[in-house]
């Protein structure tokens, strides 16, 4: 187990070190996310009430699209100079590679959320920052990254991988996004606690399901 965790942490260390140096992924994600937020703010002349109602949808769409950039790029790094073969040759359970990549991508998307949510709050003069909303972001982004990392491993072999990932990913994450948007809306606009509980359970269930799927199929998925 220690070896498994060491391998996960080594992958996280390697990716974050490279990112600190190049700022390729976070740079692209933030430029993209902030542009989307600004377009939503300035393209529609919405009332304050409508902006509050639209907030959850806008934020989740922004995070998902920005997340696709990190998923694609973090896999491309492994394709350059065939780094993935180097990882596959390591004497550890190969699911460590999957969970290492999940952790790295989760860090990227959470850092994006940490900037996107306050920016949206400031421009719309509405407070979106709360512990409950942070909880939804944590659960929703984790499910998205668990699924996306698995599918990006699949699409890495394809010539059209940049295009294929969203095509494969978005249909699969529809239940997750629905739950995340509904739960966020209840927190931001108020609603029944029991309904919020249901959506939160769905988010947690989705995360658990894809955690288990990753654990079971990753090794088979990457085998030639």
């Amino acid at each position, binding site marked *: 187990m220690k070896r498994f965790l060491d*391998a996960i*942490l080594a992958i996280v260390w390697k990716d974050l070190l490279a990112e600190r140096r190049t700022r390729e992924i976070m740079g692209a994600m933030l430029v993209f996310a902030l542009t989307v937020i600004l377009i939503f703010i300035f393209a529609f002349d919405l009332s304050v009430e409508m902006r509050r109602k639209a907030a959850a949808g806008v934020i989740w769409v922004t995070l998902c699209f920005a997340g696709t950039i990190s998923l694609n790029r973090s896999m491309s*790094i492994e394709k350059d100079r065939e780094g993935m073969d*180097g990882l*596959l040759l390591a004497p550890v359970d190969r699911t460590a590679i999957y969970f290492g990549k999940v952790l790295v991508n989760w860090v990227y998307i959470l850092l994006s959320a940490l900037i996107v949510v306050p920016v949206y709050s400031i421009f719309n003069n509405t407070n979106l920052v709360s512990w409950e909303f942070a909880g939804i972001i944590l659960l929703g982004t984790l499910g998205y990254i668990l699924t996306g990392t698995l599918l990006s491993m699949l699409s890495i072999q394809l010539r059209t991988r940049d295009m294929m990932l969203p095509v494969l990913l978005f249909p699969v994450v529809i239940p997750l996004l629905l739950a995340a948007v509904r739960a966020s809306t209840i927190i931001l606009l108020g609603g029944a606690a029991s309904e919020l509980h249901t959506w939160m359970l769905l988010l947690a269930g989705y995360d658990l399901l894809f955690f288990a799927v990753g654990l079971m199929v990753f090794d088979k998925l990457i085998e030639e």
Partner: protein
Amino acid sequence: MLTASNLYKSFGSRRVLRGVNMEIDRGEIVALIGVNGAGKSTLLRILSTLTRADGGKISLDGNSIYKDPARVRQQIGVVLHAPMLYGSLTGRENLRFFSRMFEVADAEKRISQMLSEMNLTSRAEDLVRTYSRGMQQRLSIARALLHDPQVLLMDEPLTGLDDDSIGRLNQYLRNAAQQGKSILFATHDLERACELATRADTLHRGAIRDSLPIGDISPDQLRDRYQQVTAADQRDLTERNAS
């Protein structure tokens, strides 16, 4: 000892390996020779657990490599065409990362030793993307040797290396073989094969057609033998097809 018996591999309708049998004893340096597309790289990928064969068995010291692949990977070092390195990390950081993945004991000392062996100490703190092709190859070899593997599998390891680096690597591999390590390297450079190997196996049309102890054989003799084997094999095929 690394043993492969009756290995088969196809990609779609193209049959690449058609019953490969080979054994590499401890202390042996085997050159795998063959034309482009003969299946050398595929065979090395299969032996290194990166690709699964469609049929056949591979064992390391009597244990199937599919039973506990992680344990097998701890005992093999692999150099392929691509360097398997990260351009945004320095040479030392790359080795540090792989030493963590392979749980190398006393890693920093071993990293410095490998950098020195490959004559890369002065460039150790530079990003790998600034390295020349030959330097990347040397670092890739250092990566493969980092965990002191018992078996070395190398696909054209001398590509891009200058004469000095080739001399150093040959010496390192000879020493490794003397310590009981098994080495298999693919090449189509028969001169280099004669310099280093103790045996040359010819892979032709998906199978090992000849296995020749090198001893004092010259590159020209090896070339003649290689041409005889491949020509005879081609004749057999033509006759079989005609009948």
